[in-house]
């Protein structure tokens, strides 16, 4: 189990015990974090699980791969640390990870 925090757009913090190997998106859905829609169910085929990775974590989490970068074209207000949360898999090193939900999804 790894502790991650998802911050909703209104500032509400969701501190979650996430299973290693699960995606940040799955944890958001399981905990009913508002603003994560995940229309395509985690196939990297939509852009409705968009999050901003906390700048302190950006390097560790890494940059999106080409397919994810393409999907991010459809997201709203994309920023340098934008990721699709279905493509971030939780692992030990992410203990303490913080991501933020944007104002809206595409």
């Amino acid at each position, binding site marked *: 189990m790894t502790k991650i925090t998802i911050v909703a757009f209104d500032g509400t913090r969701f501190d979650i015990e996430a299973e290693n190997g699960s995606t940040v998106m799955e944890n958001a859905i399981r905990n009913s974090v508002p603003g994560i829609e995940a229309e395509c169910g985690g196939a990297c*085929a939509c852009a409705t699980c968009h999050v901003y990775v906390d700048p302190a974590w950006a390097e560790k989490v890494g940059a999106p791969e080409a397919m994810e*970068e393409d999907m991010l*074209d*459809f997201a709203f*207000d*994309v920023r340098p640390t934008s990721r699709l949360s279905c493509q971030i898999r939780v692992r030990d090193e992410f203990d303490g990870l913080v991501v933020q939900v944007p104002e809206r*999804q*595409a």
Partner: protein
Amino acid sequence: MTNPIETDVVIVGAGPVGLFAVFELGLYDLKCHLIDILDRPGGQCAELYPEKPIYDIPAWPEITGQALVDRLMEQIAPFKPEFHFNRMVAGFRRLDDGRFEVTTDEGELLVAKAVVIAAGGGSFQAKRPPVPGIENYEGQSVFYSVRRMEEFRDQDLLIVGGGDSALDWTLNLRSVAKSVTLVHRRPDFRAAPDSVNKMFALNETGDIRFQVGQVTGLSGADGQLTAATIKSPDGEIEIPCTRMLPFFGLTMKLGPIADWGLELNENLIKVDTEKFETNIPGVFAIGDINWYPGKLKLILSGFHEAALMTQAVKRLVSPGEKVVFQYTTSSTSLQKKLGVS
């Protein structure tokens, strides 16, 4: 209005399930016409994930979305289905003789003995980009497709997006528009490299302008656009424009089917699990569009539903005739229809 096209079955939607329905209905000599808003068959498989492998199609340990569609097209070819692409199914009514009349947004008229709705997640429609207030300009200054190039003559045109549509229209509308500016959030594109190179060359010579950034706001009045606000790497900028073409991919909407009087459960059409018939007798719903207790939105479930629906449609179309169940492996009559014996 054109003369009506008469057929046995009209299938709304040419996704994998609509396509397989052609096969099952074809085995029982039922002729099908399919209507789809897309310009090609395959529904979600072709539009959303053509290159992704699917792992749960029986007997196909791995097959991509597009390959599945290609195989289905091959499988149903003997039944000569007729496709009406780039058409939205609009109107629907029951005629006095019990048949159904289905109309498209282009005014075609189809008359069928049964209607099979295989509309999946709904019809694919252009996605509205999340720019506040954009709806106030739609239809007047903001368009999601190009029906006539003349509409853009002498306009200051802003094209937004990084795929083939955005690039193609940037190159094509340059000759009629007063100016063309392409806005995309990064200098990498999802479009054909050839178009991208052409676009960059035109940007060099000043024939068009390419701006990295994201549209955050629009200004204008009474539906008439005058400028767009762009968040660019160098800060916020304003780009004067009178027309905008955003290309933000496609989303699925139930559309006009919602007004047909069908019983719905959260935008899905309620059916029984024997015939997959809706509350309107003679109208069936299969695949992702239907709902019944235990429903799973899987391609294989849609295939099963197509087989059972066919039995009911055959009984409806040929009342009194005995519906004989046969295997394709052993029935010479089925093999004749398939063109293999």
